[in-house]
């Protein structure tokens, strides 16, 4: 009976209204992304990033200098432990501190962006529960904000280049591409994780471990050649392998290694992001009831 009634009413709603009629109703399983709406709200990204950037270092003495201190400390620790004590071979004439830096900067971005993105919905619940806007912009802008830290971190690299009297490779023009690839993977994984976090806060506890394990599973402190050749394909299935190798290739000019790593990484990034979008859209409908 209900169905018959809505059948009878819908033609009127379907007639063109000068202002456009939106129908609020239970949606089906698959909710496509509404790109027109995203475009209409595009300004949000700017203000979310501005807001997050401004509040990131509030009440700190060093302020944005942390964006330099943190990678610097990591590089020192890695150089002492893995470069000197463990004596990891890098297969190049590049000193270990310089060699490890692109990976540290890349993974620094990945770690911050991934953990912030996974909790972004919960952290923004005060806004999400009060006003409608495309929620996609929450994890998206959260993944963009740490790029500021990353760019500041490049100063460390410049310092190391100067110290070792070396210059970056011309491949550096490809760096934004690899940063974009890192961002795509982060957004894809972040969409999955943030959707889960809305339902189960367990994710908040799990993500730090995930990030830590992922870093060791990525050739940040060791080169791919450190792994026996028969197992290297496993490493290439990790989408961040191509990111870190790409960072090294574009900044230091060292060989990229197997191009299949890039193919695998891009395919996984696209796959995770597309499925993540659907998972997110599905959660988006009832997010407010969960938060």
């Amino acid at each position, binding site marked *: 009976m209900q169905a018959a009634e809505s059948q009878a009413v819908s033609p009127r709603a379907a007639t063109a209204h000068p202002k456009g009629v939106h129908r609020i109703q239970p949606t089906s399983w698959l909710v496509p992304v509404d790109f027109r709406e995203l475009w209409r709200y595009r300004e949000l990204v700017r203000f979310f990033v501005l807001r997050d950037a401004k509040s990131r270092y509030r009440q700190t003495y060093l302020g944005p200098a942390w964006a330099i201190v943190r990678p610097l400390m990591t590089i020192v620790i890695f150089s002492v432990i893995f470069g000197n004590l463990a004596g990891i071979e890098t297969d190049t004439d590049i000193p270990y501190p310089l060699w490890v830096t692109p990976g540290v900067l890349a993974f620094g971005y990945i770690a911050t962006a991934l953990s912030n993105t996974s909790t972004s919905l919960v952290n923004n619940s005060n806004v999400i529960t009060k006003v409608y806007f495309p929620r996609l912009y929450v994890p998206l802008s959260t993944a963009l904000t740490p790029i500021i830290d990353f760019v500041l971190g490049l100063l460390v690299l410049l310092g190391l280049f100067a110290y070792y009297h070396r210059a970056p490779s011309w491949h550096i023009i490809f760096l934004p591409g690899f940063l974009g690839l890192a961002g795509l993977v982060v957004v894809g994984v972040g969409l999955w994780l943030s959707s889960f976090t809305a*339902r189960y806060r367990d994710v908040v506890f799990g993500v730090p471990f995930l990030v830590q394990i992922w870093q060791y599973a990525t050739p940040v402190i060791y080169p791919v050649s450190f792994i026996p050749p028969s197992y290297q394909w496993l490493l290439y299935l990790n989408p961040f392998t191509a990111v870190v190798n790409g960072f090294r290739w574009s900044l230091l000019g060292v060989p990229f290694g197997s191009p299949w790593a890039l193919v695998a990484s891009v395919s996984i990034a696209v796959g995770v992001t597309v499925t993540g979008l659907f998972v997110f859209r599905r959660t988006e409908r009832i997010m407010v*009831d969960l938060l």
Partner: protein
Amino acid sequence: MADIAVSAHGLGKRYRLGRVESGFQQLRRRARRRTGPGYLWALRDITFDVPEGEALAIIGSNGAGKSTLLKLLARLTEPTTGYADVAGRVGALLEVGTGFSPELTGRENVYLNGTLLGMSRREIDRRLDEIVAFSGVEQHLDKPVKWYSSGMYVRLGFAVAAHLEPDILIVDEVLAVGDLAFQQKCLGRMGEVTEGGRTVLFVSHNLAAVSALCPQAMYLRDGQVSARGPTRAVIDQYLHDVKATARVDVRDRIDRDGDGRIRFTEVSVAGGKVKTGGECEISLFYEGTAGAGRVRVACAVYGAFVEPLFQCLNDDSGDLIGELGAEGSFTCTIPRLPLAPGHYTLSVICEIDGKVADWVSHAAVLEVVEGDFFGTGRLPSLAHGAFVVDHAWRSEPVTAPAARLSRSAS
């Protein structure tokens, strides 16, 4: 043909009761073969139309589903059943200053808040001067809002909202914030909006504001539409339904004012209903941390059309109060209630050392039934107006009776 702005058909929203179970709890429950937590229909089969340009008030007690309906129409969550067609752009104000961030400047927050509410950058650029003038924070516009007083914060937030130009404006009790003068300004601004021909849906406990702003009202009760029509008739039915609950719990009322040094918890009228001319005892229960101070507590009485009638204030009656407990009550006694039979609402307010501590408007309903006000053994005749006042009549003939007068003339 008047266009329909909002058209809801059989809208329903079901919530799962209780919190998310942990895996352990779920295992234990399954082991004991119990069924899962139940469901609650917050809204059921809501069907209504709002013609374009109408200002519709949505009233109802706490938990009647008003907020859920608002959330559905504001697209914050999805209905479980039914649908609603909404024509044009919807602006929903469920809060003042949504998304305001303490680290951003006033100007940046105006842009962030405006964008969240669906304004384009150009629209905000165009209206920035008006918004700033309305808020009155010109001099602090480029300071982070964490330096703002709470009053400035609210004014700036409302200023953005007030300059939103949606086709349909949905407003939840946001007017219940700020000082009285600012509330008046907001009410005025909302009046302009409705006069401009825009559709407004307004949810509020403030029956005075509702009847001033909205000619039409809808009364929700237990998740269903109980009445829809001219505001006065709907308010009347609402008051009739909530009449004289012995004790009204006001703990959950969020549309209150004051700094919260004390908070009213319950308002009760002894005996449930009071006779005209009978003794009326109103108790206001509170909890708080105020300790000592100069306390002014008042109970204001409003008529059926939410017009203010009178107030009882301890300062006026000379009953000074200087000490408060962590919990306690104030009781006001009106020895001979001068109100005609009918329904009245009570607003309660407490001021400590000259600053408002708590203020709940229309906290409870006072039901007055017929009574022997004059002690004549008879009920007063049908009232003219809200009051029955003590009075006496005297007749003093100045000249001789008319009969004699006519005789002397002859």
